[in-house]
């Protein structure tokens, strides 16, 4: 799990990801159908509660009651692609909004955890409280943040308009953690 930081300072620069984000929420009356249709369209069982489901190519996060964030790696094309497919599949059942441009996604690499995350987040990232398939909607350095894990780190999706400040705080946390390890001699 814990990768060593490369000798270059690169490890302390925030890593910004390109992803497609679809927010799906539905009225109570269509909850069951919406789940089914979402499963159909994505091949992923929409999680109950604050969890991450899916695989590298298709992730569904539970971000609220009857509310999911679908994460598909890669910038999306406007006309076709998974986003359009999912939207079409849920048409009339649920509200599907394209939030790809609404949030900027940063990755805190595993080797900088938990230290860097302790500086950014107030939630408990211990596996007992936040398992590998955990997801959370919380605040990072005073900004709204959707948080989940992938193979190589912790992902933070913050509001697009605050991207610059988010980059500042994530970078600060990464550099501070690196410096702290240097001081205490931790790997």
């Amino acid at each position, binding site marked *: 799990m814990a990768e060593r930081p490369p000798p270059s300072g690169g490890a302390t620069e925030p890593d910004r990801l390109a992803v497609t984000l679809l927010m799906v929420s539905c009225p109570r009356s269509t909850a069951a159908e919406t789940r089914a249709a979402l499963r159909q369209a994505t091949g992923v069982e929409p999680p109950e509660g604050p969890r991450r489901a899916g695989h590298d190519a298709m992730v569904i996060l539970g971000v609220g009651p009857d509310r999911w964030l679908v994460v598909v790696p890669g910038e999306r094309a406007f006309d076709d692609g998974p986003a359009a497919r999912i939207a079409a599949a849920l048409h009339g059942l649920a509200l599907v909004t394209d939030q790809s441009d*609404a949030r900027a996604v940063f990755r805190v690499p595993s080797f900088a955890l938990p230290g860097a995350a302790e500086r950014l987040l107030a939630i408990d990232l211990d596996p007992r409280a936040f398992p590998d398939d955990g997801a959370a909607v919380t605040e990072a350095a005073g900004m709204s943040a959707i948080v989940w894990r992938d193979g190589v780190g912790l992902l933070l999706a913050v*509001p697009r308009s605050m991207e610059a400040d988010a980059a500042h705080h994530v970078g600060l946390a990464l550099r501070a953690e690196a410096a702290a390890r*240097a001081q205490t001699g931790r790997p």
Partner: protein
Amino acid sequence: MSGWRLPSGGLVDRGRPLDFRFDGRRYTGLAGDTLASALTANGVRLLGRSFKYHRPRGLFAAGPDEPNALVELRAGARREPNTRASEVELFEGLEAASQNRFPSLAFDLMGVNSIVSPLLAAGFYYKTFKWPSAFWERVYEPLIRRAAGLGRLSGAPDPDAYETATVHADVLVVGGGPAGLAAALAAGRAGARVILAERDAHFGGRLLSERHVIGEGDGLAFARAAADELAAMPNVRLMPRTTVFGVYDGGSHGALEKVADHLPEPPPGLPRQRAWTIVARRSVVATGSVERPVVFSANDTPGVMLASAMRGLAVRHAVAAGRRVAVFTATDDGWAAAADMAAAGVPVSTVIDARPGRRPVPPELAAARVIAGGLVREAIGGRSLSTIEVVLPGGGVERIPCDALAVSGGHQPDIQLAGHLGHRPAWNDGLSAFVAGELPPGQRLAGAAAGRLSLAACLADGHAAGRDAAADCGFAAPSGEAPRAKDEPSAVSALFHVPGGRGKAFVDLQHDVTADDVALAAREGYVAAEHLKRYTTLGMATDQGRTSNLNGLAILAALTGRTIPEAGLPRGRPPTAPVAIAALAGAHRGRHFRPTRLPPTHEVAVERGASFIEAGAWLRAAYFPAEGEDWLAAATREAAAVRRAAGVTEMSTLGKVEVFGPDAAAFLQRLYANAIDRLKVGRCAYGLMLREDGFVMDDGTVARLGDRHFVVTCSTAHAADVFEHMEFCRQVLWPEMDLTLQSVTEAFAPLALAGPRARDILARVVDPGVDVSAEALPFLGCLEVTLLGGVPARIFRISFSGELAFEIAVPARRGADLMRAILARGADLGVAPYGLEALNILRIEKGHPAGAELDGRVTAHDLGLGAMAERAHDCIGRTLALRPALTDPGRPRLVGLSPLDGARIRSGAHLLPRDAAVVAGNDQGWVTSAAFSPELGRWIALGYLAGGHLRHGEVVRVADPLRGSDALATVGPPCFIDPKGERARG
């Protein structure tokens, strides 16, 4: 010369001398020293001047208990006032200066205060300086302020970085002394997630400054072994140099980690300090106890110290506080201190035990004179102790020469953290001290903090507390045996005050509160503990009364014939040790105090050389100055361009919410004051939202995208609150309604394209085949189209400017492209980018209310929208909106104001009848917004005027005494251009 370095022993590194400066003079200490121990080793005894009388003061206590030895540490912008020399880890090149003295420490002119001291008794300032009253601010107060206070801040911004961070644990152990180490070991072995926080750089607590035997080895060996075992446990986190300063709700604790205070300055990337929030399910507080001094005459003479402090100097730092040391004790611990000091090589000449009866004399003290049942009644020596006056058992008085006196009056368990949630302590007669009463949820006390003073008891108690805390969290792996030590005697007596001396007997050394002051307060009726504290300032100094509160209460109790607990119970308040303001702010300072929100077209505004303005959290383009233009010229040109050709501006800061579901229409119908349900698919409408109390909450637009699908907008300022309100209605008020909401504020980049040529330009950016003609897209219509080659867009034909206008919403990351395309493809038609200033001009010309008009005290009637609120349908706020006070025609109503002879009026000016005097009685309203109208070629304004809707044509007085202007203006309707709205419909 008084103090000196012992030839051997101590936890100092004799191979690592460190140079430092105090009051400009150069000294040398050793690695492992504190500033206090290094100064003492150098024979420096006079370390500060006292708060009120400016009396000479020396080192008195250890660690955070120190009341006297406060210094200004470091220089320049890093100067840190009121720093306890006893807490400063010595580093190479350290600079420190004494404080609160003028001109010099040795010769302090303010010392005169002690000559006139009877005048300066407690509360003297309440009784004088009353006349002449103007003199208070001009003369008396500045004098008092200059004399008072302690150290000086640099006045420059703090150059260091700080961090805040949060960490979670099952068990938090506060204090790394014997009890804390035993607790952490037990909890850690049991498998719990443990944090051990210790304020010192090293774990061990008293084991570092006392001689003890634990198990087979000495106390120090135990401490090191324990710390090593803990460091090796993956589930344990050691936090040295970390003070847990406060207990808060839900297991939250505030802690301060001194990351770099032991270094000349923080290394690159590291903060000076880190403010932790530690969330723990259970806590074990093992903070030890504070030694209590005895109050007697001139007990503040440099050379008089707490026994524990002098013992620590000897054992930990190998420093002797004097060459002829006397010990005055009322506790067994005082004997142990004397023995430890003697063993370390400190010449202990006399031990005076206030308690009668002989006691076994430790072998180390065989050479010392022992006086049982003696009382030290006065210290003599002024700037440095030379003699003590002792009342002998028989009643005789003897003067005994000595240059240092160690005092041990008793031990007060450090129970501050037990009191932070408001629980009060209880009195314990056996200890003559306060112990914790009821404890905060999840908290345990262990060791001396729990009143168990002997080492053996501390170890056993700590082990049990750690084990039980872990068990509470469900961790039951075996915790091993509790470490064992022999149970040394630890009896205390109740000696607080020895009267009869001639000089001042100090209770609170730092604030110069004497036993006489306590007596005076009692005489004047300030007999509640809090009254005593507030009247005399006893216990309010930077040591928070650690060494003074109990003695003060004891003396007050004796004077008023009450027991100590009757006299009062101390109340613990955070922080337990002072915390730097910057540390709690962490990284949220300077430009990063709060996030800066940038709209999607920010880069275009930058390219175009826009001037920016703060709008709430947003940074928005205010205007786009051409060569040589000021804001007014630029904004005027931009507004004119919109009226005559076309302009484009950013609207993305508006709140945007999508509403979907079978009950979407019915939901919005209840949410808005105006009828929404009859809105057809593909149409938009103005929407007015009321608060539950009937006043206007916000306004915006509602567009129907489908039978069950709407998108609504709300003002930038209220975006978050409106969404919260909508969710409140959906989840709390009408849970039976079937719909869902999503905020899409960040997802889209809506641009407003406005002006007579707007449609022509729009036609040039939409994809081929997209029809934006008046027929396809009539006024208040909306379309979903593609543009710029496949980019999905929603076009709303709504107008804030009053011109033919389109709001074009594309995915945020294409907003900049769209704006560039519009500017490029519309260049020949005269399109210009416009900013917030022009936007403001245009909406004022049209009389559209914005932030300044919607100030939360406004009703629909005030805006001239009363008809909406009076609609028959039930909506939030309707009933209360119809209260007479909210519909009263005499209320200030929105009007347009046209100044006479082209005068300029400013928002914030007040409106009065034409010839009325400028007094409150004639105040009839105010100006909310003003602008120079390019269309009209003069200044215009909006404002609220009492009964204004009935006063069109009247000339009113526009008074602005604050800015020295006074004008006349004609009242009119709040719309200056195209009142019929034909342009927007065109």
